[in-house]
């Protein structure tokens, strides 16, 4: 314990040292007029601009299929590619949930965020914003039949509103209604709530509202003029990216704002309205998502088992320190939600200087989590073998470890395997949690399809069916397997 605290303190101190020396350099450079900054340096060194976005916000950024392949498109994305081009590097798009974006740019997971994000004083304390490249009004999207009911600001004070959590629209919604605001992660979820009349209106950018109007005639835009009026979309960068900031501002002025952006928007809307059958357009997402989900579960359980065996043996050992460490790990992991563990691994690896992909981070979080449960399964499986077996073996002169190897483990496996199968089923379902860091598994792909198709409900049903087939199929297989084990008990053993 002490050792860890010491390490932590050293880490914090080292961080402080780097920060202060960085500041010192910063000061020196200001005198000579800066030429670069850490983020720009990194971009130049790697030859690519890593752009973070949350692609569920058509026509800003959304998924589409091109020649059967999935692609993130939208005018934000086009603008980001233009910035990359002007900087002379390749552009790489990295997707994650909207509320993970600021963390990603602060820890350096991504170089910039282009996600229709608006500058607010709170955000400006954490990150740097470029000048706004696009200014959009916010409006209240309602159902057509209720349009009259919510046509003035006064009426809207009584409306129940939804908005995307930690967005500018969320702030506005809080200002204009006296009712409690429903803050959700995804626009599609908000629109679903509107559809089901769980909320009276959704505060969205007018561009987004327009796309919903084009998709379906059940919506309408309230004519009420919202205060705070416009929200400009800016490129978001790390606080240290001061040179990059001015470069981006110049690129925006010279190459994006005005006519080029208008064209990008027209292209995006055209892509958005491309007609194709639901199945041919979106089945690749579900296939890909299913494969990722299975992959995550296999990796999670496989490494979970290896680590779980280690922890189980530690917990069963007579050495107090091992026992204590294993118990502490198991209790800690089981006592913290997987969602939080996923974020800790994702941002934590970055903070200590490890650059790993979101899939790898997700897989690591999954198996670190699974290991705790597997350890308990193995421990109880081992303890379920009768003491008489150990006594018989020891009385014959077998050592402790021989007894474990030849008598206990082979018998424990019969208790353990069925429970491990159940763990596999659990892991398949829990894998949905890692969608928050943008791992393209089934749940993630579902929200992609929801966003791209403007159909909030159908994709959910399809996903539920896929999950069910996976988990039910595996449980049936396990049942057969268990029966076979029991059968061999009768005829052979």
């Amino acid at each position, binding site marked *: 314990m002490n050792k860890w605290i010491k390490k932590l303190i050293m880490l914090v101190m080292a961080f402080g040292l780097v920060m202060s020396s960085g500041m010192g350099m910063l000061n020196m450079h200001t005198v000579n007029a800066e030429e670069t900054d850490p983020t720009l340096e990194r971009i130049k060194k790697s030859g690519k601009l890593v752009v973070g976005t949350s692609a569920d916000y058509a026509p800003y950024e959304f998924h589409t299929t091109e020649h059967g392949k999935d692609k993130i498109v939208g005018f934000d994305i086009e603008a980001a590619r233009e910035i990359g081009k002007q900087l002379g590097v390749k552009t790489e798009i990295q997707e994650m949930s909207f509320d993970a974006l600021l963390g990603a740019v602060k820890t350096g997971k991504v170089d910039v965020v282009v996600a229709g994000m608006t500058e607010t004083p709170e955000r400006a304390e954490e990150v740097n914003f470029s000048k706004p490249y696009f200014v959009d009004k916010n409006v209240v999207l309602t159902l057509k039949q209720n349009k009259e009911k919510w046509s003035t600001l006064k009426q809207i004070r009584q409306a129940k509103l939804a908005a995307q959590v930690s967005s500018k629209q969320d702030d506005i919604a809080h200002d204009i209604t006296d009712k409690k605001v429903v803050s959700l992660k995804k626009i599609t979820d908000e629109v679903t709530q509107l559809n089901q009349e769980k909320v009276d209106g959704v505060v969205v950018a007018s561009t987004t509202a327009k796309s919903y109007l084009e998709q379906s005639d059940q919506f309408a835009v309230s004519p009420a003029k919202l205060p705070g009026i416009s929200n400009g979309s800016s490129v978001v960068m790390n606080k240290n990216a001061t040179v990059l900031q001015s470069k981006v501002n110049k690129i925006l002025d010279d190459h994006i704002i005005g006519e080029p952006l208008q064209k990008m928007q027209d292209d995006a809307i055209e892509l958005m309205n491309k007609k194709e059958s639901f199945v041919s357009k979106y089945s690749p997402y579900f296939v890909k998502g299913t494969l990722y989900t299975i992959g995550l579960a296999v990796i999670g359980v496989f490494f979970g088992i290896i680590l779980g065996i280690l922890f189980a043996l530690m917990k069963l050992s007579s050495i107090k320190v091992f026992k204590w460490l294993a118990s502490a790990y198991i209790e800690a992991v089981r006592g913290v939600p997987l969602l939080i563990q996923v974020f800790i691994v994702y941002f934590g690896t970055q903070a200590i200087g490890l650059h790993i992909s979101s899939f790898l981070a997700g897989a690591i979080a999954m198996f670190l989590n699974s290991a705790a449960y597997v350890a308990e399964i193995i421990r109880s499986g081992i303890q379920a073998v*009768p003491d*008489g*077996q150990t*006594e*018989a*073996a*020891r*009385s*014959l*002169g*077998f*050592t*402790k470890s*021989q007894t474990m190897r*030849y*008598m206990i483990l*082979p*018998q424990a496996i019969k208790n353990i395997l069925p429970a491990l199968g159940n763990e596999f089923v659990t892991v398949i379902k829990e894998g949905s949690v890692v969608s928050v860091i943008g791992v393209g598994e089934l749940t993630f792909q579902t929200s992609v399809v929801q966003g791209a198709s403007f159909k909030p409900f159908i994709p959910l049903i399809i996903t539920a069916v896929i999950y069910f087939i996976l988990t039910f199929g595996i449980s049936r297989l396990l049942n057969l397997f268990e029966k076979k084990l029991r059968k061999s*008990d*009768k*005829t*052979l*053993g």
Partner: protein
Amino acid sequence: MAILEIKNLHKEYGKNTVLKSINATVEEGDVIAILGPSGTGKSTLLRELNMLEYPTSGAVIFEDQDITKASEAGLDKIRQDLGMVFQSFNLFPNMTVLDNVKIALTKVKGIADDEATATAKQFLEKVGVVDKVDVYPASLSGGQQQRVAIARALAMNPKIMLFDEPTSALDPEMVGEVLKTMRELAQEGMTMLVVTHEMGFAREVASKIWFMSDGDMTAYDNPVSFFENPNSERAQNFLAKML
């Protein structure tokens, strides 16, 4: 010649005293029946002779060595000389009958596989279950399982055999076959300590009786004197109930 000496062996579980400073000697070739009412420490005494349980104090001297103070590795060696048979057989359910007998020969003694197979078969033949070598224990009757367990212990060529209520878990019709095996063993001169409730067996086969009650032990060097003239009230009460 004394092969095993028990000196002031004392055992407490918390506040409960199970064995009260037991002193006894086992001579080579002795067949000792350990008798007494349930819960008086018979099994505990037996299990402390090969350190499956550790005494609170006292010593167990086997071949001039106090095995209560032996190292873990030393004990693994000593236990090979002290065969043990359990009430619940404790065969390894994941192995065939042959492997049950063979595995300690190959893995503990390091005997070559074909030689171990031959030895195992020889002892399975001795206890009369050689026709079952390839089946798993679960498909054997209780009597057969216990005889396999005896063969498993014998195959290690122990100097003493410890039997912990070997027939208590058996159906009545199977008790005889196990006792027969044990009787043959006694006739061959094996040193045996048997915790049992089989009075007939004790009377016919045992050369000595250890009578236990409430953690005390009284040794009778002649079974006849125990059965015909037990000079203690406890022993009289016990015999009155059992016979």
